């Protein structure tokens, strides 16, 4: 039986880790300033964070909280964990930023912005941070859909040697953050059952 052993939810108003609302008083009024406040609260000490686009920041922060709550050792190369995220808007938030840099009368395309115009970069950022060598995948859905996500996450467990999947919904667009990251583990004695009902409840 697969179990959800930890989860983190980030919205525009609050951060919830395993049912507990974190004591972060958002003072910033933009999505990106709120993400920076979460980063400071976590004291993550990871300079690469500041280079990330907002989608990667949001997915990174939620993943960071989930893995910390599980005492994950991010120094050991890990071939048994996969990362599977999904969202609605892919990398459109960063796509718009990049588009502004290639207007004919103001043309200065930046590789640092361009590299984030792919939704799966967030899965790569999380893999790099935590030395995760399993699968990384990104799916696009019209809306949050627990049933579809349950199917995609289950697929990742079919690959040989994969015993847990860091997964969920990582949506960020136009200043709005909507993230649910979960750790799903095979054969875990603890945690809540990994099913559509529970995914919907956490969301």
């Amino acid at each position: 039986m697969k179990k959800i052993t930890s989860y983190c939810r980030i919205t525009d108003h609050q951060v919830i880790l395993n049912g507990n609302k974190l004591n972060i008083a958002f003072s910033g009024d933009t999505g990106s300033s709120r993400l920076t406040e979460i980063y400071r609260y976590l004291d993550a000490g990871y300079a690469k964070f500041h280079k990330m686009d907002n989608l990667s920041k949001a997915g990174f922060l939620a993943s960071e909280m989930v893995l910390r709550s599980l005492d994950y050792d991010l120094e050991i190369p890990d071939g048994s964990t996969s990362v599977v995220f999904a969202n609605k808007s892919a990398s459109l938030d960063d796509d718009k930023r990049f588009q502004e840099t290639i207007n004919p009368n103001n043309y200065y395309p930046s590789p640092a912005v361009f590299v984030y115009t792919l939704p799966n970069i967030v899965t790569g950022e999380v893999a790099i941070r935590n030395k995760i060598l399993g699968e990384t995948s990104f799916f696009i859905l019209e809306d949050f859909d627990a049933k579809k996500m349950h199917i995609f996450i289950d697929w990742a467990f079919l690959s040989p040697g994969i015993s847990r999947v860091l997964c969920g919904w990582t949506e960020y667009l136009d200043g709005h953050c909507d993230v649910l990251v979960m750790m799903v583990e095979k054969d875990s004695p603890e945690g809540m059952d990994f099913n559509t009902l529970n995914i919907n409840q956490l969301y």
Partner: protein
Amino acid sequence: MIFKLSDNIVSSLGFTTAANYKAVLEGKSGITPGKDAAGNPISISRIDAGKLDATFQDTFHVKEAYTLAEQAMLLSAHIAIQEAGINASSDRTCFVLSSTKGNIHLLGLPSHDFGKDRVHLWHTAKLLAGFFGNPNFPVTVSNACISGACAQIAAIHLLEQGNYDHVVVTGMDLAPDFIVSGFQSFKSLDQERCRPFDARRKGLNLGEAAATIVYGKEKKPGISLVKGSIRNDANHISGPSRTGEGLFRALQTAMEDLPACEIAFISAHGTATPYNDQMEAVAFSRAGLGSTPVFSLKAHFGHTLGAAGVLESVIALKALEQGLVLPSTGFQEPGIEGEINVSKSLSKTDKRFCLKTLSGFGGCNAALLFQNAL
């Protein structure tokens, strides 16, 4: 294991698999001189937009307007569906779309009549399934340059889990200013035609394409997709790993117990950037594939991003069917350290398996294992 029923490629080299495969055998390239948005010279493989629109209108006689990206995708899917003879509107058929940027060119238009949802990949996928009257919500994968492999792996799961009889996998990406300027800013483009695995390789060319494979779950002789695997390098978001860790692991899980001597060839990613090609050689060698013939198709089609995994599988599978190992076009002087057997000329093989590999931004790598069964 799932079974290939039909396929199609819409690219600069033609709108059928036969035309594209013939062009490859004749050593032709669709890569021609062009300009980027700032007027710098580039080499690029573009679909003939006028010819595509004319073919699209002749084929479908529809009133609604479709973007060029949608036309390429729909035409490719249509041709493959016709050839397979499947019922695309059945609830036992599912569509899978592989694309990195889909209709992203819409962001650069001052105004258009397509509506605000049209730029979204979920919309493109819904339009694909809806066009053929399919009632199922399509699967959309967007995993950078390995998307075309991920889409085929999704097809394995969809078919093996028993809810579907047929899966239509379509990959599509064009090369609008958005993408060209991004790769230009990375300084990863070769102004001339690219030279994968060659000592003088300087970078990649971009390419436009849509490609489709229709898979079924009913066992049949011919080509099957045996297994696929995706693994991350956990190294860098835009730089290939020096140890080829992710690709090595993807190959290991895709091959499992199959000895390397059973593999006819590897259709590699081979983008012709200095680091990618070197990384692949390290991974192949580590996986015991140092003497297996390797070729890249990028000098024919350019790098077609989300379409690449499907397009290059289609060409590789034609070669496997005919017992041929293709030459790696653009390769002249060995320029890779370590053990790699880059295919120099067309040769025959009686082996029945081949590998397709891909690597992409975000550190992701994929390997697909195909078989040609009698």
